[in-house]
């Protein structure tokens, strides 16, 4: 044993991991629709007729190919649950924690499926009253995907 035996030496690793994921046929279609048309699209299962979201080639419930019956999810829905996070949350775009993100919510779209997204409102008291919401799309720089929607804004009715 040397005199340094009790020194605790650590190895720091902070390299970003680089991946290049293919969206594939089904998610690719949904991404293309958000990017080009500011439109959320899901596919309807050929058997149970439910909307599969996120879109998939196989219905998770029926375990059969979903087919290509595409439907618009629309821009409006109802907040089922929300949370605002006080603890820092990981921001994958900048590779670090952020302290005050927009609140997360589980939203039932009027078309019937449920999506996860953010809410514009950040005041904890006002959040309690947020029920009906509408997607606010990015006007510039849409790249395909859920970040093409900035957040959901409270609306009347």
């Amino acid at each position, binding site marked *: 044993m040397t005199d340094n035996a009790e020194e605790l030496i650590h190895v720091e690793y902070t390299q970003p991991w680089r991946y290049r994921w293919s969206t594939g046929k089904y998610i690719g279609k949904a991404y293309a629709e958000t990017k080009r048309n500011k439109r959320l699209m899901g596919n309807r299962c050929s058997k149970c007729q439910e909307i599969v979201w996120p879109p998939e080639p196989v219905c998770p419930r029926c375990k059969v190919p979903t087919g290509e019956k595409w439907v618009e999810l629309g821009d409006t829905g109802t907040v089922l649950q929300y949370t605002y996070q006080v603890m*820092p*949350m990981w921001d994958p775009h900048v590779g670090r924690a952020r302290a005050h993100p927009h609140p*997360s919510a589980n939203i039932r779209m009027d078309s019937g499926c449920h999506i996860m997204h953010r809410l514009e409102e950040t005041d904890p008291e006002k959040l309690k009253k947020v029920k009906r919401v509408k997607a606010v799309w990015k006007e510039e720089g849409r790249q395909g995907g*859920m970040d093409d929607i900035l957040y959901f804004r409270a609306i009347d009715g």
Partner: protein
Amino acid sequence: MANRVAIVAVAQTRYHPNREDVNEGELAYEAIAQVIGETGLDFSEDGGIGLAITSSDDYWDGRTISNNIVQAAVGAHMSDEGKVCEDGLNAIYSAYTRIVSGRQDLVIVCSHMKESQADKSMVENLTMDPMFLRPFGIDYLTASALQARCYMEKYGITSEQCAKVAVKNRGNARNNPFAQEPLAITVDDVLNSEVMADPIRLLDSKPVSDGACAMILASEERARKLTAKPIWILGVSNCYEAHYLGERDLAACDALSTAAQKAYRMADIKDPVREIQVAEICEEFSYQELLWYAGLGLCGAGEGGRLIDSGVTQMGGSLAVNPSGGMLSGVPNIVGGMSRAAEIVLQLRGEAAARQVEGPRIGLAHGYTGMCGQLQCVMVLGN
């Protein structure tokens, strides 16, 4: 008649917020050395342990093939080896199937984790699908807050009832020498702790934890020779549900119900509340214990609040849940389910010391993996 499978030795490290004095292999070996020493077994081809199955997670460990670092410690060098990148209860399930099939008669399992090595929120975010969930920066805390709200609103579960779980489990932990965070707290302490993600507060959540658990499983013939107190795996099952939260009923935990019913059927359990005397279940957040009660068939849907109020699941109740203190008192993810099973083994052997439940014959171990309990595993054990 299938081969019977027993757990013949168990060991855990003491759980700790930051074991920066050891790497994962050294941490795992602290538990492994105990089960090897206790049974006197080796890894020889002639009658030794023929297979090692570990559970760990590549993202948490920051390296693919996260079992590499424990290869030597678990005796896997030039031997049959497997890794389960899921909660450790699934590693026991995997070892069980190898023995039932007759392919192996002795298997060592080990689950190891150093949560202190990485940023919890980052790792959990990386487990999300990259197309639809990861971009939001959502982590298990956020997702669980949504689940908690969904469950509490649907059934009128109160924050006080959730807080009772934290008070019970952290209080029980005072009797557990392996526990990281035994605390004498009150419901008010929980309700006054800081909000992490509304409605989840600091004391509703488990702390960051490092630790390992190891076991040796044996065929009936080998088990009889190794110990006077073999603990039999009577039933086991797992069930997997949708990843995307919108696809699930967050207040229902359907995967857990399915896994539990299959495990009970296999173990010939018809009335779990009457037939099971002790349960150890994984609850990263306090509301989960109440929700999982119903999934495990210990009460009806939405009756978890009433069950905790009744005192049945406290120490001294007819079905004590988490006498060890559960995960809330500090057990790492991935290790959770295996350490639950280890605690049930101690209970059924009558070796749980100050946290011993009186004379249990049947015990239940539960573990889950992933956001809001996506993969659920249930095991019924008997002495």
